[in-house]
Protein backbone atom coordinates (compact mmCIF):
# COMPACT_ATOMS: atom_id res chain seq x y z
CA UNK A 1 0.00 0.00 0.00
CA UNK A 2 1.00 3.61 -0.44
CA UNK A 3 0.24 6.33 2.06
CA UNK A 4 0.32 10.14 1.98
CA UNK A 5 2.34 11.72 4.77
CA UNK A 6 4.51 14.85 5.24
CA UNK A 7 3.86 15.90 1.66
CA UNK A 8 5.31 12.67 0.26
CA UNK A 9 4.34 9.06 -0.30
CA UNK A 10 5.32 6.09 1.84
CA UNK A 11 5.12 2.64 0.23
CA UNK A 12 4.91 -0.01 2.91
CA UNK A 13 4.18 -3.70 3.35
CA UNK A 14 3.27 -2.90 6.97
CA UNK A 15 -0.25 -1.43 7.03
CA UNK A 16 -0.63 2.12 8.38
CA UNK A 17 -4.35 2.42 9.18
CA UNK A 18 -3.78 5.94 10.55
CA UNK A 19 -2.66 7.30 7.15
CA UNK A 20 -4.68 8.15 4.03
CA UNK A 21 -3.85 5.97 1.03
CA UNK A 22 -2.59 7.45 -2.20
CA UNK A 23 -1.21 6.47 -5.60
CA UNK A 24 1.73 7.50 -7.76
CA UNK A 25 5.45 7.19 -7.24
CA UNK A 26 6.75 6.85 -3.70
CA UNK A 27 9.37 8.87 -1.86
CA UNK A 28 9.98 6.35 0.88
CA UNK A 29 9.80 2.57 1.13
CA UNK A 30 9.30 0.54 4.31
CA UNK A 31 10.34 -3.10 4.09
CA UNK A 32 9.87 -5.66 6.86
CA UNK A 33 12.72 -8.20 6.96
CA UNK A 34 12.59 -11.38 8.98
CA UNK A 35 16.34 -11.98 8.81
CA UNK A 36 18.87 -10.59 11.24
CA UNK A 37 20.13 -7.10 10.50
CA UNK A 38 23.38 -7.18 8.51
CA UNK A 39 26.70 -6.38 10.07
CA UNK A 40 27.52 -2.73 9.48
CA UNK A 41 30.92 -1.47 8.43
CA UNK A 42 32.64 1.43 10.10
CA UNK A 43 29.62 2.22 12.25
CA UNK A 44 29.79 5.28 14.48
CA UNK A 45 27.34 5.71 17.34
CA UNK A 46 25.76 9.15 17.05
CA UNK A 47 23.56 8.99 20.10
CA UNK A 48 21.76 6.95 22.72
CA UNK A 49 18.59 7.80 24.60
CA UNK A 50 16.47 6.30 27.30
CA UNK A 51 12.85 7.43 27.58
CA UNK A 52 10.93 5.57 30.29
CA UNK A 53 11.50 1.86 29.68
CA UNK A 54 12.51 2.41 26.04
CA UNK A 55 16.14 2.67 24.98
CA UNK A 56 17.20 3.62 21.50
CA UNK A 57 20.42 4.17 19.65
CA UNK A 58 21.38 5.77 16.35
CA UNK A 59 24.43 4.65 14.38
CA UNK A 60 25.83 6.00 11.14
CA UNK A 61 27.59 3.60 8.79
CA UNK A 62 28.78 3.50 5.20
CA UNK A 63 25.35 2.96 3.63
CA UNK A 64 23.25 5.09 5.96
CA UNK A 65 21.88 4.98 9.47
CA UNK A 66 20.74 2.33 11.93
CA UNK A 67 18.10 3.14 14.52
CA UNK A 68 17.76 0.42 17.16
CA UNK A 69 14.83 0.28 19.56
CA UNK A 70 14.98 -2.16 22.45
CA UNK A 71 11.31 -3.21 22.11
CA UNK A 72 10.85 -2.97 18.33
CA UNK A 73 14.04 -4.02 16.59
CA UNK A 74 16.37 -2.44 14.08
CA UNK A 75 15.53 0.12 11.41
CA UNK A 76 18.16 0.47 8.69
CA UNK A 77 17.67 3.80 6.94
CA UNK A 78 19.22 4.46 3.54
CA UNK A 79 18.86 8.13 2.61
CA UNK A 80 20.02 7.62 -0.98
CA UNK A 81 16.98 5.46 -1.75
CA UNK A 82 14.59 6.61 0.98
CA UNK A 83 14.39 3.02 2.22
CA UNK A 84 13.67 1.94 5.79
CA UNK A 85 14.27 -1.76 6.47
CA UNK A 86 12.72 -2.95 9.69
CA UNK A 87 14.19 -6.08 11.28
CA UNK A 88 11.67 -6.71 14.10
CA UNK A 89 12.46 -8.51 17.31
CA UNK A 90 10.07 -11.32 18.28
CA UNK A 91 6.64 -10.02 19.30
CA UNK A 92 7.49 -6.45 18.36
CA UNK A 93 4.24 -4.45 18.51
CA UNK A 94 3.38 -3.14 15.01
CA UNK A 95 1.96 0.06 16.50
CA UNK A 96 5.35 0.81 18.07
CA UNK A 97 7.06 0.23 14.71
CA UNK A 98 4.56 2.54 13.00
CA UNK A 99 5.22 5.23 15.60
CA UNK A 100 8.98 4.90 15.07
CA UNK A 101 8.64 5.05 11.28
CA UNK A 102 6.30 8.07 11.37
CA UNK A 103 8.41 9.69 14.08
CA UNK A 104 12.20 9.50 14.19
CA UNK A 105 12.82 7.39 11.06
CA UNK A 106 10.94 9.63 8.64
CA UNK A 107 12.04 12.76 10.53
CA UNK A 108 15.64 11.74 9.89
CA UNK A 109 14.99 11.19 6.17
CA UNK A 110 13.10 14.49 5.98
CA UNK A 111 15.90 16.40 7.71
CA UNK A 112 18.55 14.83 5.49
CA UNK A 113 16.42 16.04 2.58
CA UNK A 114 16.34 19.64 3.79
CA UNK A 115 13.34 19.85 6.12
CA UNK A 116 13.40 21.01 9.73
CA UNK A 117 11.33 18.83 12.06
CA UNK A 118 9.88 20.11 15.31
CA UNK A 119 8.37 18.12 18.16
CA UNK A 120 5.04 19.88 18.22
CA UNK A 121 1.54 20.17 16.93
CA UNK A 122 0.13 22.27 14.09
CA UNK A 123 -3.15 23.53 12.60
CA UNK A 124 -4.18 25.93 9.86
CA UNK A 125 -5.94 28.99 11.33
CA UNK A 126 -7.30 31.38 8.75
CA UNK A 127 -4.92 31.37 5.82
CA UNK A 128 -1.77 30.23 7.62
CA UNK A 129 -0.48 27.41 9.74
CA UNK A 130 0.45 27.88 13.39
CA UNK A 131 2.59 25.42 15.30
CA UNK A 132 2.91 24.79 19.02
CA UNK A 133 6.07 23.51 20.67
CA UNK A 134 6.94 22.79 24.27
CA UNK A 135 7.82 19.96 26.63
CA UNK A 136 5.44 17.09 27.34
CA UNK A 137 2.28 18.02 29.28
CA UNK A 138 2.49 21.68 28.20
CA UNK A 139 -0.65 21.46 26.04
CA UNK A 140 0.54 21.33 22.42
CA UNK A 141 -1.96 18.69 21.33
CA UNK A 142 -4.68 20.16 23.54
CA UNK A 143 -4.43 23.55 21.83
CA UNK A 144 -4.40 21.96 18.37
CA UNK A 145 -7.42 19.82 19.21
CA UNK A 146 -9.31 22.79 20.66
CA UNK A 147 -8.52 24.88 17.56
CA UNK A 148 -9.54 22.01 15.25
CA UNK A 149 -12.83 21.70 17.14
CA UNK A 150 -13.31 25.44 16.54
CA UNK A 151 -12.96 25.04 12.77
CA UNK A 152 -9.21 25.11 12.09
CA UNK A 153 -7.71 22.46 9.83
CA UNK A 154 -5.52 19.85 11.49
CA UNK A 155 -1.98 19.56 10.07
CA UNK A 156 0.04 17.37 12.41
CA UNK A 157 0.66 16.22 15.92
CA UNK A 158 3.97 15.11 17.39
CA UNK A 159 6.11 15.87 14.32
CA UNK A 160 5.86 19.15 12.41
CA UNK A 161 7.93 18.88 9.22
CA UNK A 162 8.87 22.37 8.03
CA UNK A 163 10.07 23.16 4.54
CA UNK A 164 12.35 26.17 5.20
CA UNK A 165 11.40 27.75 1.92
CA UNK A 166 10.87 30.47 0.97
CA UNK A 167 7.98 30.26 1.48
CA UNK A 168 8.26 28.41 4.79
CA UNK A 169 5.58 25.73 4.66
CA UNK A 170 4.25 22.72 6.51
CA UNK A 171 2.69 19.63 4.99
CA UNK A 172 -0.19 17.57 6.39
CA UNK A 173 1.23 14.72 8.41
CA UNK A 174 -0.43 11.97 10.43
CA UNK A 175 -4.17 12.53 11.03
CA UNK A 176 -4.17 11.12 14.54
CA UNK A 177 -3.38 12.45 17.99
CA UNK A 178 -2.21 11.07 21.30
CA UNK A 179 -4.04 12.87 24.06
CA UNK A 180 -4.23 12.86 27.82
CA UNK A 181 -7.46 11.58 29.34
CA UNK A 182 -8.50 14.96 30.73
CA UNK A 183 -8.16 16.47 27.25
CA UNK A 184 -10.59 13.92 25.84
CA UNK A 185 -12.98 14.57 28.74
CA UNK A 186 -12.95 18.34 28.21
CA UNK A 187 -12.80 18.66 24.42
CA UNK A 188 -14.99 17.04 21.73
CA UNK A 189 -12.39 14.60 20.37
CA UNK A 190 -15.14 12.06 19.70
CA UNK A 191 -16.84 14.42 17.26
CA UNK A 192 -13.65 14.85 15.22
CA UNK A 193 -12.11 11.39 15.28
CA UNK A 194 -13.78 8.12 14.31
CA UNK A 195 -11.73 6.03 16.73
CA UNK A 196 -10.81 6.77 20.34
CA UNK A 197 -8.56 4.13 21.96
CA UNK A 198 -7.87 4.55 25.66
CA UNK A 199 -4.55 3.60 27.20
CA UNK A 200 -1.97 5.49 29.25
CA UNK A 201 -2.69 8.14 26.65
CA UNK A 202 -5.71 8.22 24.37
CA UNK A 203 -5.08 7.58 20.68
CA UNK A 204 -7.57 9.45 18.50
CA UNK A 205 -7.54 8.50 14.82
CA UNK A 206 -9.85 8.50 11.82
CA UNK A 207 -10.15 12.25 11.46
CA UNK A 208 -13.52 13.24 9.99
CA UNK A 209 -13.46 14.26 6.31
CA UNK A 210 -12.75 17.93 5.74
CA UNK A 211 -10.99 18.43 9.07
CA UNK A 212 -7.47 17.52 7.89
CA UNK A 213 -5.57 20.15 5.91
CA UNK A 214 -5.38 18.79 2.37
CA UNK A 215 -2.49 20.89 1.04
CA UNK A 216 0.72 22.53 2.24
CA UNK A 217 0.22 25.74 4.19
CA UNK A 218 2.47 28.73 4.79
CA UNK A 219 3.72 28.68 8.36
CA UNK A 220 2.61 31.95 9.96
CA UNK A 221 3.76 31.54 13.55
CA UNK A 222 5.40 29.15 15.98
CA UNK A 223 4.34 29.34 19.61
CA UNK A 224 6.50 28.05 22.45
CA UNK A 225 3.98 27.27 25.18
CA UNK A 226 4.65 28.67 28.65
CA UNK A 227 1.98 27.53 31.13
CA UNK A 228 1.06 30.17 33.71
CA UNK A 229 -1.22 30.19 36.73
CA UNK A 230 -4.70 31.45 36.02
CA UNK A 231 -5.87 34.65 37.64
CA UNK A 232 -8.96 36.81 37.37
CA UNK A 233 -6.88 39.82 36.33
CA UNK A 234 -4.95 37.90 33.69
CA UNK A 235 -5.74 37.97 29.96
CA UNK A 236 -6.86 34.58 28.62
CA UNK A 237 -3.64 34.28 26.68
CA UNK A 238 -0.64 36.54 26.05
CA UNK A 239 2.26 36.33 23.67
CA UNK A 240 5.76 37.80 23.53
CA UNK A 241 7.78 37.68 20.34
CA UNK A 242 11.28 36.27 20.67
CA UNK A 243 14.27 37.98 19.10
CA UNK A 244 15.80 36.19 16.15
CA UNK A 245 18.63 34.48 18.02
CA UNK A 246 16.41 33.47 20.96
CA UNK A 247 13.88 32.13 18.44
CA UNK A 248 16.50 29.99 16.71
CA UNK A 249 17.68 28.66 20.08
CA UNK A 250 14.09 27.84 21.07
CA UNK A 251 13.48 26.00 17.78
CA UNK A 252 16.71 24.05 18.24
CA UNK A 253 15.57 22.95 21.69
CA UNK A 254 12.27 21.66 20.28
CA UNK A 255 13.60 19.61 17.37
CA UNK A 256 11.95 16.24 16.86
CA UNK A 257 15.33 14.52 16.76
CA UNK A 258 17.16 15.52 19.94
CA UNK A 259 20.86 16.27 19.84
CA UNK A 260 21.74 13.40 22.15
CA UNK A 261 20.24 10.98 19.58
CA UNK A 262 21.50 12.42 16.30
CA UNK A 263 24.77 13.87 17.55
CA UNK A 264 26.20 17.36 17.38
CA UNK A 265 27.29 17.15 13.73
CA UNK A 266 23.68 16.74 12.60
CA UNK A 267 22.58 19.33 15.19
CA UNK A 268 25.05 21.81 13.70
CA UNK A 269 23.54 21.32 10.24
CA UNK A 270 20.06 21.80 11.67
CA UNK A 271 21.11 25.00 13.46
CA UNK A 272 21.33 26.73 10.09
CA UNK A 273 17.79 25.57 9.26
CA UNK A 274 16.56 26.77 12.65
CA UNK A 275 18.07 30.16 11.83
CA UNK A 276 16.42 30.14 8.41
CA UNK A 277 13.01 29.34 9.91
CA UNK A 278 13.47 31.90 12.71
CA UNK A 279 14.29 34.56 10.10
CA UNK A 280 11.10 33.91 8.15
CA UNK A 281 8.50 32.90 10.76
CA UNK A 282 7.67 34.83 13.95
CA UNK A 283 8.38 32.74 17.04
CA UNK A 284 6.44 33.70 20.16
CA UNK A 285 6.29 32.62 23.76
CA UNK A 286 2.64 31.89 24.47
CA UNK A 287 1.60 32.37 28.07
CA UNK A 288 -1.44 30.12 28.56
CA UNK A 289 -3.25 29.57 31.86
CA UNK A 290 -3.68 25.92 32.74
CA UNK A 291 -7.43 26.13 33.09
CA UNK A 292 -10.16 24.36 31.16
CA UNK A 293 -12.46 27.31 31.98
CA UNK A 294 -10.24 29.53 29.79
CA UNK A 295 -9.78 27.26 26.78
CA UNK A 296 -12.57 28.84 24.69
CA UNK A 297 -11.12 32.32 25.25
CA UNK A 298 -7.64 31.07 24.36
CA UNK A 299 -8.92 29.56 21.11
CA UNK A 300 -10.89 32.70 20.23
CA UNK A 301 -7.83 34.89 20.78
CA UNK A 302 -5.52 32.64 18.75
CA UNK A 303 -7.96 32.55 15.84
CA UNK A 304 -8.35 36.35 15.97
CA UNK A 305 -4.56 36.82 15.85
CA UNK A 306 -4.39 34.79 12.64
CA UNK A 307 -7.34 36.11 10.71
CA UNK A 308 -6.34 37.49 7.31
CA UNK A 309 -5.83 41.26 7.52
CA UNK A 310 -8.26 43.09 5.24
CA UNK A 311 -7.03 46.08 3.32
CA UNK A 312 -9.07 49.20 4.09
CA UNK A 313 -11.53 50.01 1.34
CA UNK A 314 -10.78 53.09 -0.73
CA UNK A 315 -13.60 55.13 -2.31
CA UNK A 316 -14.94 53.32 -5.32
CA UNK A 317 -12.99 50.13 -4.61
CA UNK A 318 -14.07 47.16 -2.55
CA UNK A 319 -11.75 45.85 0.15
CA UNK A 320 -9.50 43.01 -1.05
Amino acid at each position, binding site marked *: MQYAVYGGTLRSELPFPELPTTTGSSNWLLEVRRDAPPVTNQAVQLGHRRVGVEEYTLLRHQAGYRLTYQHAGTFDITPATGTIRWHPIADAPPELARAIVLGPALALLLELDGRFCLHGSCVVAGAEAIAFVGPKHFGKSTLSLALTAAGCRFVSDDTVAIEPGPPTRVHPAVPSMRLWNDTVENLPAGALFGSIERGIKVTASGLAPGVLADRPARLGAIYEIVPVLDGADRAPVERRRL*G*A*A*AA*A*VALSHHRKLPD*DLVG*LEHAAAQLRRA*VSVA*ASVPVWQLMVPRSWARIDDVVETLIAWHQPVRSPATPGQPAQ
Partner: protein
Amino acid sequence: MVQLDSTVRATPDHVSAEVEGETVILSLTTGEYYGLNTVAAHIWRLIQEPRRVSDVRDELLDYYTDIDEATCTSELLHVLDDMLRMKLVEEVRRED
Protein backbone atom coordinates in the same frame (compact mmCIF):
# COMPACT_ATOMS: atom_id res chain seq x y z
CA MET B 1 38.53 37.40 34.88
CA VAL B 2 39.22 39.05 31.58
CA GLN B 3 41.31 42.23 31.76
CA LEU B 4 41.80 45.03 29.25
CA ASP B 5 45.28 43.75 28.47
CA SER B 6 44.10 40.14 28.06
CA THR B 7 44.09 38.54 24.63
CA VAL B 8 40.98 36.48 23.85
CA ARG B 9 39.53 34.51 21.00
CA ALA B 10 36.43 32.46 20.30
CA THR B 11 36.94 28.81 21.15
CA PRO B 12 37.19 26.66 18.03
CA ASP B 13 34.65 23.98 18.99
CA HIS B 14 31.43 25.69 18.05
CA VAL B 15 29.11 26.32 15.14
CA SER B 16 27.54 29.73 14.79
CA ALA B 17 25.06 31.34 12.46
CA GLU B 18 23.89 34.91 12.07
CA VAL B 19 20.25 35.95 11.97
CA GLU B 20 19.06 39.56 11.73
CA GLY B 21 22.32 40.90 13.20
CA GLU B 22 22.20 38.48 16.12
CA THR B 23 24.17 35.25 16.44
CA VAL B 24 23.22 31.74 17.49
CA ILE B 25 25.96 29.45 18.73
CA LEU B 26 26.03 25.72 19.33
CA SER B 27 28.96 24.66 21.49
CA LEU B 28 30.29 21.37 20.17
CA THR B 29 31.95 20.81 23.54
CA THR B 30 28.93 21.17 25.80
CA GLY B 31 26.02 20.81 23.36
CA GLU B 32 24.55 24.05 24.71
CA TYR B 33 22.92 26.68 22.50
CA TYR B 34 23.46 30.40 23.01
CA GLY B 35 21.82 33.45 21.50
CA LEU B 36 23.83 36.68 21.26
CA ASN B 37 22.18 40.07 20.82
CA THR B 38 23.54 42.47 18.20
CA VAL B 39 26.26 43.98 20.41
CA ALA B 40 27.44 40.62 21.76
CA ALA B 41 27.33 39.28 18.19
CA HIS B 42 29.54 42.20 17.11
CA ILE B 43 32.04 41.32 19.85
CA TRP B 44 31.85 37.68 18.80
CA ARG B 45 32.75 38.57 15.21
CA LEU B 46 35.72 40.64 16.41
CA ILE B 47 37.25 37.81 18.43
CA GLN B 48 37.18 35.07 15.82
CA GLU B 49 40.94 35.60 15.76
CA PRO B 50 43.01 36.36 18.89
CA ARG B 51 42.48 40.03 19.84
CA ARG B 52 43.68 42.17 22.70
CA VAL B 53 40.60 43.27 24.66
CA SER B 54 41.66 46.92 24.56
CA ASP B 55 41.74 46.72 20.74
CA VAL B 56 38.23 45.26 20.70
CA ARG B 57 37.08 48.06 23.02
CA ASP B 58 38.62 50.70 20.73
CA GLU B 59 36.91 49.21 17.69
CA LEU B 60 33.55 49.21 19.49
CA LEU B 61 34.05 52.85 20.51
CA ASP B 62 34.68 53.74 16.88
CA TYR B 63 31.46 52.00 15.87
CA TYR B 64 29.10 52.91 18.74
CA THR B 65 29.63 56.64 19.04
CA ASP B 66 26.96 57.14 21.71
CA ILE B 67 28.74 55.23 24.47
CA ASP B 68 31.53 56.53 26.70
CA GLU B 69 34.81 54.70 27.19
CA ALA B 70 34.24 53.68 30.80
CA THR B 71 30.80 52.18 30.09
CA CYS B 72 32.04 50.43 26.97
CA THR B 73 34.98 48.92 28.85
CA SER B 74 32.82 47.76 31.73
CA GLU B 75 30.17 46.17 29.50
CA LEU B 76 32.74 44.55 27.21
CA LEU B 77 34.54 42.94 30.16
CA HIS B 78 31.18 41.78 31.52
CA VAL B 79 30.22 40.16 28.19
CA LEU B 80 33.63 38.52 27.81
CA ASP B 81 33.49 37.16 31.36
CA ASP B 82 30.09 35.65 30.55
CA MET B 83 31.47 34.12 27.36
CA LEU B 84 34.50 32.81 29.26
CA ARG B 85 32.21 31.14 31.81
CA MET B 86 30.17 29.59 28.96
CA LYS B 87 33.45 28.37 27.39
CA LEU B 88 32.70 30.34 24.23
CA VAL B 89 35.96 32.29 24.50
CA GLU B 90 39.38 31.51 25.85
CA GLU B 91 42.26 33.65 26.97
CA VAL B 92 45.35 33.36 24.83
CA ARG B 93 48.79 33.82 26.28
CA ARG B 94 50.79 35.92 23.86
CA GLU B 95 54.37 34.91 23.25
CA ASP B 96 55.53 38.48 22.56
